[in-house]
């Protein structure tokens, strides 16, 4: 489904991604781990098409199509979803209104009519219930004054609404309390199918106990320096990153 080939990306002439190769097939869950500043969020942003980053070499291919010329919204319409590490606030725009706009814009791109209001409301109710989100919450301004955990839960609510083909969850677990983590992880698991894929960026093994990865990759200094199965995450939790950093420099 997703194929990343020798991807190099930089910002303000500073190279951050230095040759990433990654293949994600439908039905798979991949975890990406790695020290702070290694380039995990940058990779997520580049996949999503953030223009701030310049791709200097290599490419990102989704379902056989090079995404190079696709604007971020085009990629979204093709099913790429990013749960942000730091979701932004949009004052005065309610969660409901935002989702309604997002869904209808995607439908418009596919040549579909706006979703009828009753269907929209039903969908919102259903997904809010799944993630145990209070209805009052949905009429609040997007992310404004949300607690850290509320922001993350809201990201997954949006994912549930949009049903993406490829979901990238950037540190969705950070900020969530123990119960919330379970609720959110269960939500993600319910959305998983053989036709979609999830990339989970995390620092902690705990999330991976719920969302069990097929592969774990370690990103260091803009490169994937190690890949393995789910046991790699346990090993990292026990040993830290030093040994990998050393291996990588050898």
């Amino acid at each position, binding site marked *: 489904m997703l194929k990343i080939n020798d991807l190099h990306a930089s910002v303000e002439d500073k190279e951050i991604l230095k040759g990433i190769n990654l293949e994600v097939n439908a039905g798979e869950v991949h975890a990406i781990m790695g020290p702070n500043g290694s380039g995990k969020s940058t990779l997520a942003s580049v996949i999503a098409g953030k223009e701030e980053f310049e791709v200097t070499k290599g490419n990102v291919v989704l379902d056989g199509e090079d995404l190079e010329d696709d604007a*971020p919204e085009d990629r979204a319409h093709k099913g790429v979803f990013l749960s942000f590490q730091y979701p932004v606030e949009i004052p005065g725009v309610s969660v409901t209104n935002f989702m309604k706009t997002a869904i209808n814009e995607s439908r418009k791109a596919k040549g579909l009519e706006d979703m009828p209001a009753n269907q929209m409301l039903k969908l919102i109710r259903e997904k809010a219930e799944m993630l145990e989100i209070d209805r009052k919450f949905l009429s609040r301004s997007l992310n404004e004054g949300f607690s850290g955990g509320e922001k993350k839960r809201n990201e997954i609510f949006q994912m549930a609404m949009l049903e993406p083909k490829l979901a990238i969850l950037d540190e969705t677990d950070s900020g969530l309390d123990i119960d919330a983590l379970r609720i959110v992880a269960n939500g993600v698991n319910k959305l998983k199918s053989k036709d979609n894929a999830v990339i989970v960026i995390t620092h902690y093994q705990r999330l991976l106990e719920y969302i069990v990865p097929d592969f774990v990759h370690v990103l260091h200094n803009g490169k994937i320096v190690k890949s393995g199965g789910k046991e790699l995450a346990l090993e990292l939790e026990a040993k830290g990153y030093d040994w990998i950093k050393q291996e990588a420099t050898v």
Partner: protein
Amino acid sequence: MAYTEEELKKELETKEYEYGFYTDIESDTFPKGLNEDIVRAISKKKNEPEWMTEWRLEAFRIWEKMEEPEWANVNYEKPDFQSISYYSAPKKADPNKSLDDVDPELLEMYRKLGISVDEQKKLQNVAVDIVVDSVSVATTFKKTLAEKGIIFMPISEAIQEHPELVKKYMGTVVPKTDNFYAALNSAVFTDGSFCYIPKGVKCPMELSTYFRINEGGTGQFERTLVIADESSYVSYLEGCTAPSRDENQLHAAVVELIALDDAEIKYSTVQNWYPGNAEGKGGVYNFVTKRGICENNSKISWTQVETGSAVTWKYPSCILKGNNSVGEFYSIAVTNNFQQADTGTKMVHLGKNTKSTIISKGISAGKSQNSYRGLVHIGSRAENARNFSQCDSLLMGNECGAHTFPYIEAKNKTAQIEHEATTSKIGEDQIFYCNQRGIDTEKAIALIVNGFSKEVLNKLPMEFAVEAQKLLEISLEGSVG
């Protein structure tokens, strides 16, 4: 054919007019320049009574001695008042013109705003075949209004038909001496609206649709007078969301509102005059004086969405004379490209327990300058007066400016005044966030701007709010990326 006496009299009157003293300036457009003869000629053209002519002349003499104000935070080339023509007959539809002759860019805008083809034609001065809708709507409106005793007509007609009301109230809120543009308007105003709501009557409809259908080009010196008698209510909508490419460079309107005891007036404006092109060429100078006076327990609420004009100078104000009276000002001002707006309000608290609320939302893009200027004045006898002001600015890009000039004068110790101000910027991160959810940049800006303006948009009557939202979107098109 036999004339009735009445017809004969009319005939003679017009003949006299035709061949009278003013024949040299009797054409449809007066020669350029302003002097007492021109003022008299305008009055004559409108068939006005003597007192009105005198009123205008007095205003003219006052204006002559005044200087154009310089204090606003705007920069423009001062109009030459002697090179303006002060009267043009209302434009007639040009039978040879079709929509094909109209600037396609403008038509595209109309399409986006969802303006009907007939209305487009009207706005562009193209002959309309049949406007069944508006005619019938207008008639039903007239009937309903008449039944309630509501007077709603062009001010020139009101001068003829209700001189006692016009005489009693015109110039009482905005005196001829008030300011340069108000004095000018008082001398040369050509038309505008008059509205009177009798005691205890709640006007059953927004006085907009009627207005919009009936008064396409209201001219550059518009004069509006709204009187809400005791315990009455009216909601008045002015303007049109459709962009007008008026060739008049200078617009100097005066609006006076009078809310008698226990009355309420809600006055909403959408101003979308031609803002000039992207290089800052052309565009309307909009210098408007709007003020209302509140008697006991009454309320005046101004709501404005200002997106047009090259230069805007406008401060809809409330004089809270009566005890327990309430003044409100809700404003959205958008400037893009080279537009300049200096707008805000004056809340003058004179009565006891008076209350005012000011919510101002300024949105600046391009190389524009957007200023909020507001005065809260608490008089010495205004016990327990309260004011809350909130001024928010939203910036797009790095080349525009937002400024806030709040003035507070409190002469009574019991006053409670609160002022909040914020400035924010539409961030690339906000836009990327929206993009990532499938919302393109233009739509994202519209969404963010609408969110920012929500508190004010919510104050607009429903059908107007939807149009205003679209208008905000269009005004900011091309301002990012």
